[in-house]
């Protein structure tokens, strides 16, 4: 018996000893640890399709233009550029001191090679070269498999000059250059390590950005970087080490408090707990949550019914009392904080959405009269794994339920099924959201293009369609801006959908650090992260 007790005690002691090894690994230099909920899908800029990957890639590769910590575009690998309005041609001058970390220069060929590689391999983000993105000459046709990749309208005039021809004006072209899709890749290096092995380990990545990859295994939970001393702007980089980890939300908050992580995204349920904490950090995330109306539904075809549904929603209430995370009540379809001209927000002065239950009921009754019915039943569809859509749906069901003559049913399912149902025209009203692809209002306006029907709402409006067509070919920035404002007006006064909320990102950020660049579109920027003085 004594022997048994002794063995038991020994086992427990061993466990304690092992545990003592736990703790943070120390580095001599300045280290910052950022967390996402999911690991990157790929560090290959031609293959990546998700935000985490884009951010992880942007840490070690730069594009022609990049964003600084305030969200302003600055010339990165491109030192300068020229735009010919008549021929729709951009000419980029590549920086002389832009180098890959194996000593070779970054050249215009690197861009042409990478761009063609995406299209040649039929990668998903190939669509960004077409009219859903940069509108590069032949981009749309190549991405649909109708033309060969080497016909793309991008040429290296010489090692340091890149010429890009557009098929149509693209007001946000420079903003797009900040995306991983348009980054360069060193052809000799990629072919040497093999296309399928490229970017699968630190040895198979090549850096020309602020950091270089020191630890990475696909499928593991983190990517670790060290400062890249051969970076053309290395003087500005203060961090010695950067770690991007993927951690589940609950463990992440605990890890933040124990000092393991310096940045952790939190859900709106934790806002109350951390609101007064020094570490509380709210930033524009650019997602617009809205109620989509299916225009194949007879009741929803009536403008008064749609107007009533929109007027019955108290958006301030949702933003301030339900989510409370810095999210803003929507004022139009385009979100606030996404797109600016001369320092003025596109949505400045817009006020298309208001709350008025009495007026809503009046419009609803009018609608019922026009339809010749005394009541209608509508179904609200939403995803059960897409927070905060469930909170928004619950709110909408309650708010819209206050309309007399309206019976609301609801249906919930996983996001994948919800998307399938929307594409298959199997919905009436749906809580959905749209994330901007680029910092230009057109990313939202084109959602309701009757031809492409990306919103799946089957919206039809000839005036709107004409405006969109005009916007697509207008080269004058001011005229185009005004056209977009007009299009927004048409859409909103037609109550094509009921925008609800502009989602803010909420996080806990170590107050000892500053200089992180987080924006609604584009990868995060860690280049300027430093300790607060």
């Amino acid at each position, binding site marked *: *018996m004594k022997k048994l007790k002794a063995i*038991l005690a020994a086992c427990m002691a061993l466990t304690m000893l092992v545990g003592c090894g736990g703790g943070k690994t120390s580095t001599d230099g300045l280290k910052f640890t950022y967390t996402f909920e999911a690991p990157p899908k790929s560090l290959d800029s031609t293959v990546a399709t998700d935000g985490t990957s884009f951010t992880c890639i942007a840490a070690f590769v730069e594009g022609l233009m990049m964003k600084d910590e305030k969200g302003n575009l600055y010339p990165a690998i491109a030192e300068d550029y020229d735009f010919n309005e008549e021929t729709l041609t951009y000419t980029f001058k590549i920086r002389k001191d832009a180098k890959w970390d194996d000593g070779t220069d970054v050249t215009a060929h690197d861009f042409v090679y990478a761009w063609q590689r995406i299209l040649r391999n*039929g990668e998903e983000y190939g669509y960004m070269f077409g009219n859903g993105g940069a509108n590069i000459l032949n981009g749309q046709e190549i991405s*649909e498999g109708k033309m060969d990749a080497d016909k793309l309208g991008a040429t290296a005039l010489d090692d340091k000059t890149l010429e890009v021809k557009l098929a149509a004006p693209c007001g946000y072209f420079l903003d797009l250059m900040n995306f991983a899709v348009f980054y360069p890749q060193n052809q000799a290096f990629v072919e040497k390590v093999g296309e399928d092995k490229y970017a699968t380990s630190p040895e198979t990545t090549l850096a020309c950005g602020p950091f270089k990859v020191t630890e990475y295994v*696909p499928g*593991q939970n983190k990517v670790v970087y060290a400062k890249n001393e051969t970076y053309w702007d290395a003087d500005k980089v203060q961090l010695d080490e950067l770690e991007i980890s993927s951690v589940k939300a609950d463990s992440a908050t605990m*890890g933040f*408090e124990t000092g393991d992580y310096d940045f952790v995204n939190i859900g709106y349920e934790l806002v109350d707990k951390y609101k007064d904490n020094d570490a509380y950090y709210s930033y524009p995330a650019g997602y617009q949550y809205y109620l989509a109306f299916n225009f194949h539904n007879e009741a929803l075809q009536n403008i008064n019914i749609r107007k009533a549904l929109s007027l019955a929603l108290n958006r301030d209430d949702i933003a301030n009392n339900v989510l409370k995370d810095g999210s803003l009540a929507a004022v139009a379809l385009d979100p606030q904080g996404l797109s600016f001209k001369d320092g003025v927000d596109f949505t400045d002065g817009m006020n298309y959405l208001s709350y008025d239950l009495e007026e809503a009921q009046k419009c609803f009754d009018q609608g019922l009269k026009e339809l010749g019915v005394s009541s209608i039943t509508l179904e609200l569809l939403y995803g059960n794994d897409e927070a905060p859509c469930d909170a928004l749906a619950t709110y909408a069901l309650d708010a819209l339920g206050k309309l007399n003559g309206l019976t609301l049913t609801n249906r919930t399912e996983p996001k994948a099924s919800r998307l399938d149902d929307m594409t298959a025209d199997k919905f009436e009203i749906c809580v959905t959201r749209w994330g901007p692809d680029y910092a230009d209002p057109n990313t939202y306006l084109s959602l309701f293009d009757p031809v492409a029907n990306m919103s799946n709402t089957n919206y039809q409006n000839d005036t709107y369609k004409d405006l969109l067509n005009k916007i697509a070919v207008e080269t004058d920035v001011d005229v185009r801006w005004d056209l977009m404002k007009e299009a927004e007006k048409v859409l909103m006064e037609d109550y094509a959908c009921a925008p609800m909320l502009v989602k803010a990102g909420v996080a806990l950020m170590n107050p000892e650090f500053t200089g992180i660049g987080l924006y609604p579109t584009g990868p995060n920027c860690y280049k300027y992260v430093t300790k607060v003085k």
Partner: protein
Amino acid sequence: MDKSMLKYILKRVLISLITLFIILTVLFIMIKSLPGSPFNIEKMSDAQIAVANAKYGLDKPMLVQYGMYLKGMITGDYGVSYNLYKDVEVSALMGNAIQISFMFGIVATIFGTLIGMLLGVVAGLKKNTIWDTLTTIISVLGVSVPSFVFALLAVYFLGYKLQLFPLQYSTRDPISTSVLPILALSMSVIANVARFTRTEMISVLNSEYMTLAKAKGLDGKTLIFKHALRNSLIPVITILGPILVNLMTGTMVVEQICGVPGLGSLLIKGIAANDYNVVLACAFLYAVMYVVIVFIIDLSYGFIDPRIRLGKGD
């Protein structure tokens, strides 16, 4: 081994193989029938979606796709990930994940079995004392409470509140960061083994050959270690089967909680992302492990328990 035993084994092997084939077919059909797509279809035009599908052969009829998959399996090619880790070979992803999960599983099993045996022996020897009651409580808790609840409790109390262990698994520090998940996983092992060992111990202590040994004059220590222990511990192997199966399902959530990039985590993420090849390979591997474990345990019954073996021989 006699002829009838050999025939029995061969028959079981054949049945197992057929079972696995049926499982694979059903898995394949089910996974391809899931709603949604591994691609970012929200933002792609129909033509672009068609290009993406064609690139991976997803536009071919299901039978053709299945044939291609089977052919690939023979050469060890399980396809590539379409979504989670774009274009990375599934075999590479699983290789890394399996190493980690197996290590966790084996350590949790060994650790849990040792502790469980200790508790069970003590409880059996000291029947109806405080040790016995404690063991019973631990057993009931360990069997009824799911392992992920233990994981959450461990992470919260031991990791966060008391800061004894790191919260997340990290390859930089594999030993100390594995403690919490292994503790959580081993709870059900401890519980099952303790309960079983206690029962066996009691029945052995009361058995006729123990009375005979006592009568022969053997003292307490020899009695316990040479006879009682040996005879009550060997049958524990027979319950390892269900224990291992429990572990397999337990790892899925525990891995998510403690950030362990293992097989369970890969499977769950794959399902959420509609990543066909990843889900197929992981789910099928679980099926194979289950079938193999059950097969081995069934066979081992014959060897371990002499009563069964001798009985067959008659």
